[in-house]
């Protein structure tokens, strides 16, 4: 499983995303830029320039037509994937920490930071897909301020009208997208900051990672914790493999890098866990700093990790991985 190294970012990676087909990989960074790469060979296809602050978050729609980004410059931008042009800019009083498309690509949810007299906010925007994409509404269809712990991550689950969130306190919650009411929560989903939240393909369950050194799988409807993966390091990202019963976890503490970093390969690992048995099945080393973000190819043939070290590593799985049945012939429904 020889990795492809994507070199192009000058500072740490904040989020990476495959498009639906998996041929493209999007990456954003504290270096103010967003890049798009061919996932099969690591060639850079283009750069989306315009943000004047760290780009914290990106998402791409299921048609690979629009990409949305959120930045420390208090802007959310809509981009044409193909031309690289910025189609629309929304401005907020504070930084945009997380963005996500819904399943039908006609709404975006975003989290803006709580800072300097401004409350943290969750906004939902309708996306006009008619025409060239430049005709968007500045006004959100809903705007609410979650009380209590700050939201850090958000997504649209399969249940319509609800927004799924992860919070600084470790809470996960469901909000009514119209009224902003918190309709359900699990205050003790984690004991510390929820750093990532990735949904299953059908949006009925999700995996979270946390600074509390665990990752967990939750039922999207009940928020019941189904599985827990306990590691010895703070986690920044967790992803669900689509075809194999695995979750991939990444994180790490910067201090660990001081000891024995070899020249070719860093010590920071992506961990593979069996999602049903809650057992660790393997690790892949590579980064020279903590792993900040992990994404898995939607066909399950590869995964990518973005590091604090400024590199993206794309690993294509060997046949031995895709055909492996380390636990025998048990059929597991993904």
């Amino acid at each position, binding site marked *: 499983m020889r990795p492809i190294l994507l070199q192009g970012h000058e500072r740490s990676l904040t989020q990476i995303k495959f498009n639906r087909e998996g041929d493209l990989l999007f990456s954003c960074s504290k270096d103010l830029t967003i890049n798009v790469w061919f996932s099969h060979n690591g060639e850079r296809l283009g750069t989306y320039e315009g943000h004047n602050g760290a780009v914290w978050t990106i998402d791409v729609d299921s048609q690979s037509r629009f990409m949305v980004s959120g930045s420390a410059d208090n802007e959310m931008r809509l981009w044409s994937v193909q031309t690289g042009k910025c189609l629309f800019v929304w401005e907020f009083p504070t930084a945009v920490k997380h963005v996500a498309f819904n399943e039908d690509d006609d709404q975006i949810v975003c989290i803006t930071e709580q800072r300097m007299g401004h409350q943290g906010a969750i906004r939902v925007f309708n996306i006009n897909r008619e025409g060239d994409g430049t005709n968007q509404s500045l006004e959100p269809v809903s705007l609410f301020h979650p009380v209590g712990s700050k939201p850090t991550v958000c997504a649209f689950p*399969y249940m*319509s009208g609800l927004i799924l969130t992860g919070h600084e306190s470790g809470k996960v919650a469901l909000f009514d997208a119209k009224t902003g009411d918190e309709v359900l929560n699990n205050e003790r989903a984690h004991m510390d900051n929820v750093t990532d939240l990735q949904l299953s393909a059908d949006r*009925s369950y999700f995996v979270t990672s946390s600074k509390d050194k665990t990752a967990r799988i939750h*039922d999207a*409807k009940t928020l019941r914790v189904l599985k827990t993966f306990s590691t010895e390091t703070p986690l920044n990202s967790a992803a669900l493999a689509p075809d194999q019963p695995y979750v991939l976890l990444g994180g790490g503490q910067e201090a660990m890098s001081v000891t024995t970093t070899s020249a070719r390969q860093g010590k920071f690992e992506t961990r593979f866990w069996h999602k*049903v048995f809650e057992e660790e099945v393997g690790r892949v080393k590579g980064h020279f700093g903590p792993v900040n973000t992990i994404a898995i190819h939607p066909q399950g043939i590869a995964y990518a990790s973005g590091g604090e070290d400024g590199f993206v590593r794309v690993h294509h799985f060997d046949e031995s991985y895709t055909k492996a049945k*380390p636990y025998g012939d*048990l059929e*597991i*429904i993904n």
Partner: protein
Amino acid sequence: EDAVEESTVSAELIAYRKRLVDEWNAWRLQTQEEVLAEKRARGSKVDTKHAEDEDREEIE
């Protein structure tokens, strides 16, 4: 290699894993039904793959 691995795993552990898989699969089948019901309620097009899966499940 697999054979060696298999023989060293105790019968107890195999039974435990089978139970975990059965629980997981039962929950997945139930949630897949719920996702489908939600899609129908929204009136959106249900893709054929899901429809086939459901038919198969009903036969079983």
